[in-house]
């Protein structure tokens, strides 16, 4: 293109865009400061984030079930992969912002590159779907299998804003419930129907006490709105949905007292809905049960 022709073209462009000054403006000012600062901030972001995760500044409390450990492994794997992508992406941008800031150069006309695009599409498919497929295992073990026959059954009943735990008693059977009989003030928060013999030995307590190394099967239900049962150390949560009984199971392998919270918005007392999971030795568990039966008889 001859210089004269170019000039005319610029005139045309100026006519279209009335305020471009004559002659090409070669360089926009002020991009250097911004690019250096943005690259710096992105690097700082990466540095701090990586440090917090690597140094385990805010770790989750350690898990107390085998499935929990598996969840943790999957978490770690996910953290590694997404962490790598995070670092690459943020630093990649930081570098490009610094390197290609406006220094009066001419941009390269690159409308695409199908080979590259194909490559990262495949990479993303493998990485993300692979992660998803691997993540299936920990979930399958906690949800796809029914509790084993010898599991200890405890029913969890949630209502605004309390947890109640029901043990079936020596007969191993949960008695009938009738919502019309619900009356927390007279000591019948679940509405146990005493006409049902199976109900008479049912024990209702506000905390969950279980023996260590035994499989526990919870039957989770709600009396009013949607609640949730969550124990951090179990890496397990499940909603309590009125009209449904949802079963989950776990096998705690460490003694201790852990907090149970509700993670589903259930009303103004949502924040104070709280109880404890007591994982005790087998003998203590037996003592607990005996004591409860005694209390019932009095």
């Amino acid at each position, binding site marked *: 293109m001859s210089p004269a*022709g*170019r000039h005319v073209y610029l005139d045309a*462009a100026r006519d*279209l865009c009335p*305020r*471009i000054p004559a002659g*090409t403006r070669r360089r926009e000012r*002020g991009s250097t400061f911004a690019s250096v600062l*943005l690259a710096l901030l992105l690097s700082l*972001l990466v540095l701090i984030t990586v440090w917090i995760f690597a140094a385990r500044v*805010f770790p*989750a*409390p350690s898990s107390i079930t085998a499935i929990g450990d598996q*969840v943790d492994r*999957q978490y770690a794997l996910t953290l590694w992969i997404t962490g790598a*992508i*995070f670092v690459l992406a*943020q630093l990649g*941008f930081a570098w*490009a912002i610094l390197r*290609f*800031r406006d220094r009066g150069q001419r*941009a*390269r006309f*690159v*409308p695409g*590159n199908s080979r590259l*695009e194909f490559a*990262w*599409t495949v990479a*993303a*498919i493998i990485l*993300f*779907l692979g992660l*998803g497929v691997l993540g299936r295992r*920990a*979930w399958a073990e*906690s949800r796809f299998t029914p509790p084993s026959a010898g599991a200890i059954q405890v029913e969890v009943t949630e209502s605004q804003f309390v947890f109640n735990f029901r043990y079936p008693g020596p007969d191993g059977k949960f008695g009938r419930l009738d*919502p*019309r009989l619900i009356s927390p003030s007279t000591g019948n928060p679940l*509405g146990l129907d005493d006409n049902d013999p199976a109900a008479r030995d049912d024990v209702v307590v506000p905390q969950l006490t279980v023996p260590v190394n035994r499989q526990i099967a919870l039957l989770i239900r709600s009396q009013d*709105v*949607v609640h*949730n049962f969550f124990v*951090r150390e179990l890496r397990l*949560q*499940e*909603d309590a*949905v*009125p*009209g449904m009984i*949802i079963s989950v199971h776990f096998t705690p392998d460490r003694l201790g007292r852990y907090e149970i*919270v509700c*993670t*589903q918005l*259930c009303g*103004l007392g*949502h*924040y104070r809905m*709280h109880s404890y999971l007591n994982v005790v030795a087998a003998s203590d568990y037996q003592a607990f049960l005996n004591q409860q039966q005694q209390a019932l008889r009095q």
Partner: protein
Amino acid sequence: MKSRVDSAQAAAPGQIGFVRRCLFSTDHKVIGIQYFFLALFAVLIGIVLSLFMRFHLVWPAAHLSWIPWLSGGLMTPEQYLALVTMHGTLMVFFVLTVAPQSAFGNYFLPLQIGAPEMAFPRLNMLSFWLTFVALLVMLAAFVVPGGAPISGWTAYTPLSSVGSVAGPGEGLGQTLWIASIGIFCIASLLGALNFISTTIDMRAPGMTLMRMPLTVWAWFVTAILSLLAFAVLLAAAILLLLDRSAGTSFFTPAGIVLSGQLQPHAGGSPLLWEHLFWFFGHPEVYIAILPGMGVTSHVLANFSRKPVFGYKAMAITLCAIGFLGFLVWGHHMFVSGMSPYSSIAFSLLTMSIGVPSAIKTCNWLGTIWHGKLQLKSPMLFSLGFVSVFVTGGLSGLFLAQPALDNMLHGTYYVVAHFHLIMGVAAIFGIFAATYLWFPKMFGRAMNERLGQIHFWLTFVGAYCIFMPMHFIGIEGGIRRYSDYTGANYLAALQPLHRFSTIAAFATAAAQLIFLFNLFWSLRKGAPASANPWNATTLEWATPSPPPRDNFGAWKPAVYRGPYEYSVPGAAADFIPQHLSPADLEAAGAD
């Protein structure tokens, strides 16, 4: 300068009165500006609510006796939850559905495809005013007896379906909430209908699908999502309203006891509400982000002086994200009691949304690579968008695995995820759009220096607010808790909360710079030319602001793709879409 004079004429009051011209205008540009200010109003309320929330989370016992609606200066749990609900609702519906799509889409979609108007201007006006009414109805919930609803923006049943026995705010407040959402749905449906028809039938000659700016693609796909998703929410809202006021039992199960009373409902399903809500809710979050993605692609190309890298892939991935967005709603329900097998299906589908998102991210990097980066405020916000989108998107990959959702659901980890990707990334999309198009909309430039300062403070501030929430969540900090005394381990997380709160106040303060810049530039900004960014698309081929019929007697025709920057051999580093080969030839001839 001729065209500036013209545009001044266009802005001058003609024969039509103020009411027709500004209030009940059918001009898509006026309506776009109306939507813009409606969203701005809503976002300001939303921010103030969030500051009250943040303050209360850290200093629950502080006596704010100067606030009349706090009894004794103390905030009650139900007041806190009302704030959370209204904050979430205002932000999701009235800010992120309105500003990127209804405001900027309305203004620029016709301009960018070379149309003089939307296909159905009156419908357009109706849709704005319905949105306005919906906002009023929503805000009215604050002042009715019992106050605003406390059931969150997700309004899970039966909490939201049984009336005030479930808690304060669940009476009239919740009813107004549902009514407002219903009205909003209708408004959004009308808007979507207009966007789709306009894009299909009103494009200028030569404006083939593959020559549409990516913003147009994004608005188009978003409109389709709106059309399908809001119809479902409307149906669900009607059923919920009936459960509350007509005694039906769609979502309210039998035998539930609240405040000691057995409720007179028979066998409804709370999970049904969750399914319907999230069938809308997930597409909704993409409704919030897709226009931001479009703007980001648009801006990165413009300010890198380079074509969008992989234009076709960008358009396809927008469609792919939109399509997949309808298949993943179950990822909000992994622990809801839904079948654990379907969780796996939802999980894999959700992970696969990461793929088009990854393609987009890589293409954005490709777009700036070997560019000539001019870091003006729109560009800064778009680069910020990418950074925050990556951070917020990657945390989505944790949540998308049911095994991990087991420990993260209902915690602040989720709050961190959606604020980064939505409360920050999508908002950055709005900011980029504002800085980019303000000169076109108002004929004046915004102050660049203030824009830059605004960016630095907001970028750093937003990360400081929301990064700590990941750690609060990993340690088991639960969302929607008005107080940390409920569980013993929560007290240990307070330092993180405190950091977040301080950052929130600082970031919110930084928005004052933006507001000042906006309103100051409206009146005093330097006059803007037709094409201040040397850009290629059609909205820049008409004066700023454009005349009533957008292009006057000139019928735009399009001869090339939307991002012809730095084309080899061309003299200037951009070739506007409407320049014909003959024009170029002629320019280069002698």
